[in-house]
């Protein structure tokens, strides 16, 4: 048997965190169907390795920014699941005080610069966060996530060019799940290998198997070393797949059941579990214990969210301006 690429501890950590995210998202999906979570709700199920393989590389004080498929990224960055579940349920104890909801998770404390709802809007922001670190002489790096659909926004090209010109310490990560809503990558471009977009700016760019947490880890390590070393940005195209619809209201008619099943066979969590099993690093009792532990964390997050209050109406005129006596038009 081939030697495992990482330590037992690392695999166990990956397994536990990815399984937690999976169960958390499954719960969010159920709560959405029960209308206890409202608005739009985009689940991360299937894409877990993209984040797990990156957070096993970066430092706690590194930065992260993403789009609206953003329940998992902040948890990976250290935000407590309670704060995410409370945000989903629009409670004042949520990480954005119930003002942002599913698409707008934020945590300044954990240097998670947000979930952003306008496709591509976060790309220049990610470059800007990196700009500030470079300006301040900090050696932090920024992970800037985007979908394959976001690559079609003009903002990407402007930001890529300046990030290269100014050698900003930002790692652009395309989470290529092959679909932007119902539109496959093939239907939007004739440059199917999205990492090649970086090459027109001479940005070091690479395609990565996003179903393999090990591959994501290695690629992120390479990227982080490059960016932290003052060499400028990197582009990673991480090929992944979302097992669920675009959002909770997507019937998913644009792809076949067979295609989805094919990708489910590459489930990143199953792969890690298999490695653990093959190396006899985990037994059935331990697997059950992890399941129980995760179930308890998810249930606790729901209980916490349920018991928390909605923001009071007086919150309406808070958090819009820093100036605390701003004269709103109130009639």
């Amino acid at each position: 048997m081939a030697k495992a690429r990482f330590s037992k501890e690392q695999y166990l950590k990956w397994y536990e965190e990815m399984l937690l995210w999976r169960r958390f998202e499954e719960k969010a999906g159920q709560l959405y169907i029960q209308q206890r979570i409202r608005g739009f709700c985009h689940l991360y199920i299937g894409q877990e390795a993209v984040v797990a393989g990156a957070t096993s590389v970066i430092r706690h004080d590194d930065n992260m920014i993403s789009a609206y498929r953003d329940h998992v990224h902040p948890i990976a960055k250290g935000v407590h699941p309670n704060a995410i579940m409370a945000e989903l349920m629009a409670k004042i104890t949520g990480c954005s005080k119930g003002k942002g909801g599913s698409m707008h998770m934020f945590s300044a404390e954990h240097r998670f610069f947000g979930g952003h709802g306008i496709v591509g809007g976060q790309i220049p922001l990610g470059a800007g966060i990196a700009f500030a670190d470079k300006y301040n002489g900090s050696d932090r790096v920024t992970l800037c996530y985007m979908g394959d659909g976001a690559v079609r926004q003009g903002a990407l090209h402007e930001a890529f060019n300046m990030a290269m010109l100014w050698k900003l310490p930002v790692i652009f990560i395309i989470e290529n799940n092959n679909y932007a809503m119902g539109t496959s990558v093939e239907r939007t471009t004739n440059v199917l290998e999205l990492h090649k977009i970086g090459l027109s700016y001479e940005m070091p760019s690479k395609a990565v198997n996003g179903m393999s947490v090990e591959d994501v880890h290695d690629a992120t390590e390479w990227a982080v070393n490059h960016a932290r070393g003052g060499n400028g940005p990197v582009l990673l195209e991480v090929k992944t797949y979302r097992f669920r619809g675009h959002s909770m209201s997507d019937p998913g008619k644009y792809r076949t059941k067979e295609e989805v099943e094919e990708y489910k066979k590459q489930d990143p969590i199953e792969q890690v579990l298999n490695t653990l099993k093959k190396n006899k690093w985990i037994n059935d009792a331990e697997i059950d214990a992890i399941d129980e532990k995760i179930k308890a964390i998810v249930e606790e997050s729901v209980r916490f969210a349920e018991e928390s209050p909605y923001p009071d109406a007086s919150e309406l005129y808070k958090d819009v301006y820093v100036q605390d006596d701003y004269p709103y038009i109130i009639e």
Partner: protein
Amino acid sequence: MRSIQFREALREAMQEEMRRDETVFLMGEEVAEYDGAYKVSQGMLAEFGDKRVIDTPIAELGFAGIGVGAAMNGLRPVIEFMTFNFSLVAIDQVINSAAKMMSMSGGQFTVPIVFRGPTASAGMLSSQHSQAFDNWYANTPGLKVIVPSNPYDAKGLLKSAIRDNDPVIFMESEQMYGEKGEVPEEEYLIPIGKADVKRVGTDVTLVSFGKIIKTCFAAAEELEKEGISCEIIDLRTIRPIDYDTVLDSVRKTNRLVIVEEAWPLGSIATEVTFKVQKDAFDYLDAPILRVTSADVPLPYAPTLIEAALPNANKVIAAVKQVMYK
């Protein structure tokens, strides 16, 4: 008369105009193979093919500009924004190209284009997905702006918009797409720039447009029980604004409340208020009031949405205030 959904009325308008005129085409995100994010264009790819019903990448700036260029060169594009929140990515081409082209070319180039899609709030979607930019577009000379409130108006006005030789912004609502209303089988057009008196009354004039006009109907019914008679004017077009219909009504009722989903500063309410105080000052028995969204980005929580958006109770309170009751 038959009843059809708002989305069907819009679809019929586009289908009829596309059958009538080869140069009309529909372009936008998910409009073709997905049958429309909100199913407005359902079946249109099947009828017209992919030459005329065209899916785009998520590239609003690009396809808005491609639409304007195509319009300058003889076509009549209908460009769908999945919502007008995303039109901000494209607004340069709408304002700097479409709206200016005829003027800066000294009349040589016209831009017969329609930009359409849903506007304003649509449930708990938080601040980036809940914005009413109706008044932003209406502020711009060179554009015409239509915000219909029922399927009948939507169909007649969209047909006029597609036939119009100037750029038209046509704003709908996700929350109206499923609503049904009477729409005749026979073809009809509704002229751009004409308001409609949707309810006749004697005591107070309510001016509104688009989805939020519903709060006026709800308020008027409640107020009727208390003996207060409301006249409701649906502007339907907010550039140009049909001031005469508003002025005629105010000269009769002597009181005016304007209900709008945009933010208060620089709103259509502000504009109508200016015009009415200028041209009907002596007819007013009370200061003009408005009910708008709160002067803040719309948050996600239901408690805050309730506090922020116009609703029937807020309209009732405003009416009672102008009635001194």
